[in-house]
């Protein structure tokens, strides 16, 4: 889902609780270049918003960065 919204992104998701609704994602995406951390997080959160709204995800911890 994140990869679809941010083409070229590398996404690693960890299921923190084993219940698949508390997730930790590390996202590296070319779209983050030049953006503040806030804006990087905004992009990812917008991409996964439907899963929050349908209740599939309760919590998402994020670490974002542009590619090195």
């Amino acid at each position, binding site marked *: 889902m994140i990869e679809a919204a941010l083409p070229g992104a590398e996404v690693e998701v960890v299921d923190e609780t084993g219940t698949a609704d508390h997730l930790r994602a590390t996202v590296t995406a070319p779209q983050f270049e030049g953006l503040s*951390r*806030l804006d990087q*997080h*905004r992009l990812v*959160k917008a991409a996964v918003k439907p899963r929050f709204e349908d209740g599939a995800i309760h*919590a998402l*911890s*994020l*670490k974002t960065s542009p590619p090195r």
Partner: protein
Amino acid sequence: MSVADAELKQKVEELIAANPVLLFMKGTPDMPRCGFSMRVVQALDSIDVEYGAIDVLPALQPLREVTAEISDWQTFPQLYVNGELIGGADIVEEMLESGELAEALGVEQPATPPAAAQAAPPAQSPPLQIE
């Protein structure tokens, strides 16, 4: 936006303007009701900074809508410094580790690691209330 929400938005904007360091959180610094909020409290306490804290739980949905308008951010916690949204738990922790948080707050980064600093008594203002 309803009249009540417009009033709440104005109240929130006033609080953000009046408090140099302001945390919107679930629960209180003494009793966080969410792991993410607790992480921000621990980050702030570890660098010994005074801050105002607002428990969002009594008005969660209206506050989500209001902060979405003010800052394009609708999850809590939210840390504001000098009127600007800094971020939630993930960003605050990243900035604590890099030293950017202490810099943004205008305090010295303590030499002790955050885990050890947590034993120190927290410096915090009494919780603020939204009427």
